């Protein structure tokens, strides 16, 4: 699951995207938004994981876009990102 918690900057994708956003991870604040996206973009990922981010895990900010709860999470360097989340929904 750790491979799912890399930014586009770290994976070398979306080279034309704004640099600041490329260095963050995209998350949703509402499970419903994640479920909708799972249905809209099935190949983006089969699993939905849920976790609680605290101040010690980095900075977050709502991200301009069409989804009201789309949030960018800029993780601090030594945070074990995957360990903060557990899988809550999986489509078989």
């Amino acid at each position, binding site marked *: 699951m750790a491979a799912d918690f890399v930014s586009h900057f770290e994976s070398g994708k979306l080279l*034309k995207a704004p640099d600041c956003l490329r260095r963050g991870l995209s998350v949703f604040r*509402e499970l419903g938004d994640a479920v*909708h*996206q799972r249905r809209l973009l099935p190949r983006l990922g089969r699993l939905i994981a849920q976790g609680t981010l605290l101040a010690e895990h980095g900075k977050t900010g709502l991200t301009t876009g069409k989804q009201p709860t789309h949030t960018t999470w800029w993780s601090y360097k030594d945070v074990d990102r995957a360990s903060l989340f557990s899988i809550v929904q999986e489509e078989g």
Partner: protein
Amino acid sequence: MWEIEGKEIDSGRFTPFEPVEVLYEYDGPRTFTTRDLDGELNLAHWSDEDEKATRYVVVPTSPGIVDSLRRGILSVHDALNQPRCWLCDVAHDGSMIRCLLVGFEAIPKDALPSHGTMLWPTLEPLLTLRAVGSEIVQGRIPSSVIRSCVAGVQKSFKVLSEYVLGQSSQAGRPEEFLRRLFDLPTQRFAYGSFEISFRMPLEENTLFTSLDHKSYEVETLEKVGKLLSKGLKWLSTSAGEEGVYNPGDPDESAVVLRALKELTPSSQGSIERIELKGQLIGARVSPLLLERKARQRVNAAIRTQALEPQPVDLEGRIRQLDKDRLSFELREIGGTPGIQRFVFDEELLEDVFQALQDDQRVRVTGRTFPVKNLAYALDISGAKTGETS
């Protein structure tokens, strides 16, 4: 990345692959319009990606289709299902690698949006029912299936809404909201099996979210959803299997069980299974399945708690007709000042309206309704007794 057969075309047709309008954005544009070499409008949707490229499904579109997407009239899958369809592979530096003319039906199912998924989460239907059964096939769907799906949701919603509305003050309720609440707008039909989606009775982005400052209408809908979800959850528990429903509140038990009875497939008839999804019952990747045994469990719980409807037969004068909620008050019952409020179905509206206008005493027959102080009117006829005012 997956491969399908197709005819390679000049990738210059879609170069530069720049969005005209971004419709869905998540780490960059995922669904957007773009113009081709001829200046024609196309709809592009992210399908897949690997370390080399991102693949988009691109189809011709129109301002009307885009508007339908924005308003939740058309699902993204249906907007992409066009006679001409291309796959465009774009490198991560934005350069076009290749474009392939393909058949839409050849694209892997999981490389496209799921059927019925709307552009934004706020456009997702309130509730979607899909009826499944061996007799439910495209082009030959029994009308009883359609009637059962529509009436089931309407009746279930009526019971739950009356219960929720009865718990708070009657004053200041927006009429338009009440009208839609008791006659839910449809959002979408699909006939592969039979699927019907009901639209939100209001446009409200904070619905079913954890955000604060909710309006009266939002709170009402969310309470209805919580009651229904509670009942649906019970069906999958061991208590549900045994037909024992006892959340501690007998009034609530009565409405939840009646609502579940209206939604679950009958042990007879063409519907073998109902698949439920939608914002009302919470975020789910897969639909919730209701099989015939669910109805048996509900019936068992209703019997156990002696909640079977009882006949009602009263004579009086009809007053206070509420056309939005389909309800009226029967007064001067048997010459007493007693009042009984009735709810009824649309087909009885004409008779109720006539009786109200005529101001004659009428006989109302029906049965008990699971909401306190309410009865369910089934028929109206002339009063047998000759009492006059």
